[in-house]
């Protein structure tokens, strides 16, 4: 079944991407949603994480034509999520390049487990690399997101 639409953050966009184009490229270059970052382009760092029907997914290795009618949620769709404030409060970002991906992953975690333990955070977030080493404060931000 062919889909000629991409559903992103509650909106719907005509899908006119060439075969082989990734979801990350489509979001960033065609839709101008540059909050999603690409740091490796090959599924190793988590910077490009978005949600597909709520499931954290690496958009750099997801072909856009395989998304189908699933709902795509990017950081732009999570701008009012309390995690944004808790990341800022805890100083859970330095350069900030990994941060959108971290927040998207954390959003999926707290949707599934509203009060995650530190162990659960460390487990769920270990696919999101942060070269600046904001990890201790990312952990803090996620466990205190409801404050």
């Amino acid at each position, binding site marked *: 079944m062919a889909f000629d639409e991409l559903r992103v953050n509650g909106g719907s966009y005509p899908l006119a991407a060439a075969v082989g184009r990734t979801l990350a490229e489509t979001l960033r270059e065609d839709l101008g949603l540059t*909050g999603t970052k690409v740091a490796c382009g090959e599924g190793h760092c988590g910077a490009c994480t978005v949600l597909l029907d709520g499931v954290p997914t690496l958009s750099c290795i997801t072909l856009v034509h395989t998304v189908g009618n699933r709902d795509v949620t990017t950081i732009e769709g999570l701008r009012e999520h309390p995690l944004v404030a808790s990341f800022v409060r805890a100083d859970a970002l330095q350069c900030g390049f990994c941060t959108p991906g971290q927040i998207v992953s954390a959003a999926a975690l707290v949707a599934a487990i509203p009060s995650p333990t530190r162990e659960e955070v460390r487990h769920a977030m270990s696919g999101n690399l942060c070269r600046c080493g904001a990890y201790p404060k990312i952990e803090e931000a996620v466990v205190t997101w409801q404050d």
Partner: protein
Amino acid sequence: MARLIRTEKEVEGHYTEQWIVVDEDALDQWPAGPLQTVGKPAPRVDGRERARGEATYTADIQLPGMLHAAVLRSPHARARVRSLSLSSVLAAPGVRAVLEPGDSHVLTDEPGYHGAAVAAVAADTFAQARAALAQAAVEWEVLEPLLDPDQAVEKGSLVSEPNVSERGATERGVSEAEAVVEAEYRTQTVLHNSLETHQAVCVWESGRLDVYISTQFLWGVRATVAEQLELPPDKVRVVCNFMGGGFGSKNGPGEYTFIAAELARRTGRPVRCALTRREENLATGNRNSTIQRLTAGARSDGTLTVLKGDYVNSVGFEGWSPSTGGPMELLYACENVRVAEHGAKLNTPPNAAFRAPGFVEGTFGLECLMDELAARLDLDPLELRMRNYADSDLVDGRPFSSKNLLECYRRAQPHWARREEVRARSQGPWKHGMGLASQVWYGGGGPPSYAWVRVGSDGRVQVVTAMQDIGTGSRTAMAQIAAEELGLSLDRIEVSLGDTSRGPFASISAGSSTIPSMGPAVRSAAADAARQIVEIAAQRYHLEERVLSLRNGHIVSADGGSWPIEEITELLGEGQILGKGARGPNPTGMRTLTFGVQLAEVAVDIETGEVLVDRIVAIHDVGRVINPLGASSQVEGGIIQGIGHTLSEDRLLDPGTGTVLTQTLDAYKLPTIADVPEIVAEFVDRPDEHLTNLGSKGLGEPPIIPTSAAIANAIRDATGANVRSLPITREEMLRALRAAREREGLERTAETVGEVRSA
């Protein structure tokens, strides 16, 4: 008044003498300790923008008609291009221009390392550019690479003359010693791996070049690009508003900027040249590997009589030989010290500054050596360090502008006292132990650096300076400093940076220099603006200027009067108050350094060689701390990078061909959130009374410096094994454990023989 002065400038340990013009009213330092805003924790002023994905990084710049470049890189460590044909590349879909060796000084037909840039292409999309490159017809003559650093030194293949320095008489030092330890330490090549790869977007417009670039030094890029392209510097505009990490690797323009600029010139369109992760791990620099052959001698009371270090830095095909012997020269009061550094020129990717280059590697060797010496003398490692405390810089006899390392040691004691308790946690194959290491580094910053402060009629303030915030929180620190001086809350301050056409010259963000260089300039600009506000208020309220000051958003008079600042700024209408400030000189004849100590608690599985870091305590002396929250983040980040350096990161080469095997983030093992121990950060937080109007030094680099030695020393404490090579993989750990067992066996045999003899 503008003053012409001669001063010393230091970046990453390099000193240069220079004339500078400073235009600064000397301000008294603020009192020590937390003030209204400075010294209190402040979340990042741009945190929300970054966290919401609104911040525009270089990677996010999209310009109409923008083309994408891809670079053909040498697949060989050393080769010659016999023939190169790009005609099929040019004919490929979407391709607009190609460059070959000769078209740009950054392209070569005699690549000296895997990843050297040879040719480039610009196409409508990045995918097209990459696909087109695959069509390039290259015939390579593959040559034998030089890969062994010791061999390079032997053959005289060096990037510069060996750096040899000696004080005292080391031979006498050896003969006076009652205990001598000699050991060889090795550190590996480490990759920066900033999450935003190296990249630039270049646009030409009526003979002017705009460069959007992920950089640590806007003005350095401007100067280098202008010089290379023979443009007046004002024709080059460099922009970097948000930056996705650099760690030393983004101090200059890099080949990608010149490739983008040339392709943009040829096509008349904006061109992005962004490296892929794999290119990033080939061609953007690294922390070079080292071999360190070290000797320490001491009297039985622990007084050092000699320190000697022979260092080989595997610099690579280009680059510079970092000061690996620097810590040995600076850290201890030892009269007889000899350091020799060799920078081996090899067919490997060039090094680049990486968070305290040289000192991270050199501190691993030196501080492990000190603990091996302590073990030999049966002295407490902390005691040994205090016994050899340096009160002045023994390299050239200068006093320190400030040094509170003793205070760091004092604060370390309660943590150090946990040692017995930590060891007692050992159970089965898991052995626990604790170790420490000290650090010394530069970080005093220097002039020139300038800032402007603009106050509008609404009483809001904009700090304008063309500096960069590379993720360290410098934007926030500048806002705090301006807020403090103007007596305003942080939310009334906006910081505008990241554009050479929009603000004055600002220093590099390297060498832990942003806050000590820029902070004083911002304070002086804010003070200039504050003075003008007071002048206007004095006239408005018919009071003398000297009885007025700015506090809590008010103008207050000595006799208790208080008026909201807007009462005065409103008078401006569309006018503005403009304050300007400059960084003053460094104290003459003094040495400005940062100091600290870190303690590590580890657990080692002696059966498998697995090492776990449980806790790290960091106590640093960097003068006045502007933002304790951001400062603790810097410490954590440095320590986590240090843990990667110590335990998992390793850029591997194919030993036969010299090609890089670890180009991807699954092969090159960065620390993850699951690898992070408990980290405790403490600061002495005493302003350096001789340094600028702030008394602040830099903190970016200090926390990574002692991390690996503290961990290695904790491993020795836990197991008795001397790990001497980074990373401490299970293999290295098991080797060290075996060596320790053999040594113990020999000692036992020797003892038995001794007993038999004496019987």
